[in-house]
């Protein structure tokens, strides 16, 4: 299905997460000729996930640029292009390959503006993927957003719905700073309402995906969907869970999170990165410090199991937090 046809679709439409990403890119590329896409198999192939299908046909190979398998190289090229007038959107097929581009992302893109005393800017986006249970094993299943969230100078985005994906990607492309944008592979086919009209979602503004009063579940990316399912289970048991989605880990909207916990006095943090030294640690620490006088129970953290992701389906499924695990943690905290 071509981008254009989607854009002229009915006012309130349901589209997939992948379509939302593609629309954001297409609309920004129409609006601003400086926006280019660069990465492996992004043109004719439209990426292995088919997220970019149709873009090369509309914008041509000069703006949708197929590269060799050179993550460090084309990320570096994007940094230089961003410093000199373009707005590159880099495609890193699997988040696991960020390992290859970390120097260009963390030592170059993140620091150029500061090192130059504010003279140079690096308005680029690195789009990449995260998420396990796709049977892709240890080197194609990681969620490494904690690494980039640790590096000052980068903004880090984790959309959890088609609506958020489109609105946040537009903000990312328009931002003057390097932004790392994580898409959970397992959500590409997730459908959701996305308006026709142009909109952008500001960074650093958490979204309460579901209001509740007994416990706060702070969740990121696909874990928001898990948290919402958990909230359903809990509701049936008379536990009202509030699901808060920070949407960006950098900047982090601590006030919305703390306001929620101030109300519920209980909190669980769920994220698909490895649990140890991961994103749940920062958010839990922020809650434990900021809501110290309100907490009736310790903050619980659920992350990916601290093991390389195993191939065997029966094992892999054990490594990612489930709605049932979130629900039972909630029951414990609520003393049920």
């Amino acid at each position, binding site marked *: 299905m071509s981008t254009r046809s989607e854009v002229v679709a009915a006012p309130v439409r349901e589209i997939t997460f992948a379509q939302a990403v593609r629309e954001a890119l297409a609309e920004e590329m129409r609006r601003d000729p400086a926006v280019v896409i660069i990465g*492996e*198999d992004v043109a*004719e*192939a439209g990426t*292995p996930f088919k997220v970019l299908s149709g873009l090369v046909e509309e914008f041509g190979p000069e703006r949708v640029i*197929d*590269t*060799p*398998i*050179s993550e*460090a*190289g084309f990320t570096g090229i994007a940094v230089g292009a961003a410093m000199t007038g373009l707005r590159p959107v880099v495609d890193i097929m699997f988040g*696991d*390959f960020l390992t*290859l581009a970390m120097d260009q992302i963390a030592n170059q893109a993140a620091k150029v503006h500061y090192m130059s005393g504010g003279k140079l800017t690096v308005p680029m986006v690195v789009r990449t993927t995260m998420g396990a249970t*796709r*049977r*892709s*094993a*240890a*080197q*194609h299943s990681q969620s490494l957003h904690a690494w980039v969230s640790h590096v000052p100078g980068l903004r880090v985005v984790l959309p959890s719905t088609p609506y958020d994906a489109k609105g946040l990607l537009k903000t990312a492309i328009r931002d003057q700073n390097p932004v790392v944008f994580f898409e959970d592979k397992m959500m590409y086919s997730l459908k959701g309402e996305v308006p026709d009209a142009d909109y952008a979602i500001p960074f650093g503004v958490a979204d309460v995906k579901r209001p509740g009063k007994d416990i706060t579940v702070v969740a990121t990316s696909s874990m928001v969907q898990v948290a919402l399912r958990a909230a359903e289970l809990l509701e049936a048991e008379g536990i009202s869970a509030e699901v808060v989605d920070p949407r960006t880990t950098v900047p982090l909207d601590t006030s919305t999170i703390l306001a929620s916990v101030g109300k519920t006095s209980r909190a669980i943090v769920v994220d698909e990165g490895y649990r140890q030294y991961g994103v749940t640690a920062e958010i839990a620490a922020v809650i434990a410090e900021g809501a110290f006088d309100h907490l009736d129970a310790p903050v619980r953290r659920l992350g990916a*199991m*601290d*093991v*390389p992701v*195993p*191939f*065997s*389906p*029966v*094992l892999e499924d*054990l*490594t990612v937090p489930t709605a049932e695990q979130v629900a039972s943690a909630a029951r414990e905290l609520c003393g049920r």
Partner: protein
Amino acid sequence: MDWLQVYGQLLRIRIFEEHVNTLYRSGKMEGLAHLYTGEEAVAVGVCQALRQDDYITSTHRGHGHCLAKGASLDRMFAELLGRVDGYCRGKGGSMHIADQERGNLGANAIVGGSSGIATGAALSARRRGTDQVSVCFFGEGAFGQGILYEVMNMAALWRLPVIYVCENNLYNEYTPAGETTAGAMRARAEAFGIPAHEVDGQDVRAVYAAAERAVSRARAGEGPSFLLCQTYRFHGHHVGDVNRAYYRSKDEEEHWRSSRDPLPLLAGWLLERHQATPADFERLEAQVRAEVESAEAFALAAPYPDSGEVTLHVYA
């Protein structure tokens, strides 16, 4: 060299991959399957020149490398199906099969990711005073990865017993290699003073001959070599890659399948020289099919690892 036995090895890989294809399409196998079909002569030709204690590193398209280095069919299938009897207890899967008893240091799902490992194994062999040789199999897409140049430079400087075997099947996933590779591929190794040899990757005898020379050179302490094997993958990038007309033509595929298939090429040669009869091939095929079927049956019946395995082997 018993070329009929070698034919049997090509056939073993060919039929193994046929079954992988069916397992995948019938939903019995999950994940990704990058079939080696069409490239069999490269792995077999090279591994014929190796000893069991020599090392290889493999790629995401690694089933052929493992089998050519001597892996057994049943444990291969078991690994692909995530069963505990697999080479990696089901934890590695198709892209990470390792078989250290036969010097297979493992497939790798990072393009170019094993080039350092293969080079390091060569350094270790030298340091330990053995005459082991190390072979790094990689697709031409790995020319995009900087680490390949970093380690070729060190291998050349230190005259390490490593052989870089490039399987040029003309495509990096869905992009023609011509669009991703400037200049001549062999020059990428020659730039470091590494002797490069271009080989018809569909002719197992040619691959073997070239590998033989590179291996003796490495064993003799004369340093690394580079083999550029021209080959082709008969199927898609992975089993799911069905509609490929947008990146390569049916005619091109047809040409390679009909006139560049390593199996008929070797069979024809054996028949011409009366080193084998049609009956030999029939017997061989029946035998290999039976072998593969029982191996698959074993794997399908094998148990999954139990849940305790998930936290096992994170640390030694």
